[in-house]
């Protein structure tokens, strides 16, 4: 999504978000992330207005204090930015890819099943299986911090069974153009 993203040409405009819409977004974020309301309040205080940065191809970035905190594609889920995820790593369920996949991930590739199911990878056990179309934090073998944010294309159980093709679609990753933007 942010492999090629030039702020000067790809941003259509900044608009402050209405309070009623902000309330809605806040409720959505709380239901989509595993986060306590208090922590969200610390990230995004009620007093600070949310600013909607509209970008091309139906991507919306939301900023607080001109710092991007999450983004959205169409009406999709609210993906936290990677910097936010680094600060609060528990808000998303975790999957892990093996070491060989890291360099492809850093080039913006989607994560294939074998990289997730191999020895270095990690998928949650069957009891905590993640269904398809859920946001996940992508971690890497031997690394402490997340390296990307993605959305599952298959349920984790299916990934183990099929073990072929795209397992997690990458939304943002370390070193993409969204990472480069620290303030908008």
């Amino acid at each position, binding site marked *: 999504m942010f492999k090629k993203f030039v702020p000067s040409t790809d941003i259509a405009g900044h608009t402050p978000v209405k309070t009623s819409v902000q309330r809605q977004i806040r409720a959505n974020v709380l239901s989509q992330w595993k986060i306590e309301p208090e922590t969200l*309040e610390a990230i995004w205080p009620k007093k600070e207005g949310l600013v909607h940065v509209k970008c091309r191809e139906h991507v919306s970035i939301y900023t607080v204090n001109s710092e991007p905190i999450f983004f959205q594609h169409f009406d999709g889920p609210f993906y936290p930015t990677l910097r936010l995820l*680094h600060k609060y*790593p528990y808000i998303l369920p975790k999957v892990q890819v093996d070491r060989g996949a*890291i360099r492809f991930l*850093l080039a913006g590739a989607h994560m294939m099943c074998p990289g997730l199911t191999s020895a270095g990878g990690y998928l949650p056990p069957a009891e905590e299986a993640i269904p398809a179309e859920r946001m996940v934090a992508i971690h890497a073998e*031997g*690394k402490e*911090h997340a390296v990307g944010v993605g959305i599952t294309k298959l349920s984790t159980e299916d990934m183990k069974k099929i073990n072929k093709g795209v397992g997690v679609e990458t939304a943002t990753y370390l070193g993409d153009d969204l*990472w480069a933007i620290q303030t908008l």
Partner: protein
Amino acid sequence: MGRKRAQSPPRQAAPTEDEGAGSSSQQPVEPPKEPTPPVRVIYCDVCSFPLEYCEFGSSFTRCKESLKESNEELYNKYYSDEALQSKIGTLSLEAQKKLEKDAAKKEAKAEAKADAALKKKLASQVTIKRIERTKRKHVTAIHGLEAFSIDLKKAAKQLAGRFATGASVTKNAQGLDEIVVQGDVSDEILEILEKGEGVLKGVPIDNVQVVEDKKKKTEG
């Protein structure tokens, strides 16, 4: 708002009259929940990645050096022999070698790119143009500042404040952005660029040229 505030004091007073049981049942209603503090991640000064990902960046050697200088402890954590051993993990030796080779290649590429960008920057020119308007009135157009990563809007604002005239960012005939300042201020701007006042810094003075654009004399 006013009404709510007026109501609240009697409510607070109520449990104190009951004492004991009343106040204890009140407490869970407002738990003193603290927001979870954020995890502090240390980012590399050079490539902006978390330190452990420097090896995948395009400036690994520089990252490594700068970390060694700034923080020996962390350096040892990531780049001591043991750390390197455990890092290889499940990857086969061949794959590891390939990875290293790729990383070196990537680094060389990034370096070449940075060099080219620097060269281009050094070669780019800034022109200060005095354009005649009517009779003794002029405007001054400054072109090419963006190559030195100067925010044109901010620069225009600064110049406007400095000279107490209008200054704006406009597109010129070639479709490139330039700053237009009202009045003939080319000498002053040259001076400012030389000193590097405010946002207008980092421009080598040799790259600045002053030109004059005279209107064709149609009337006598």
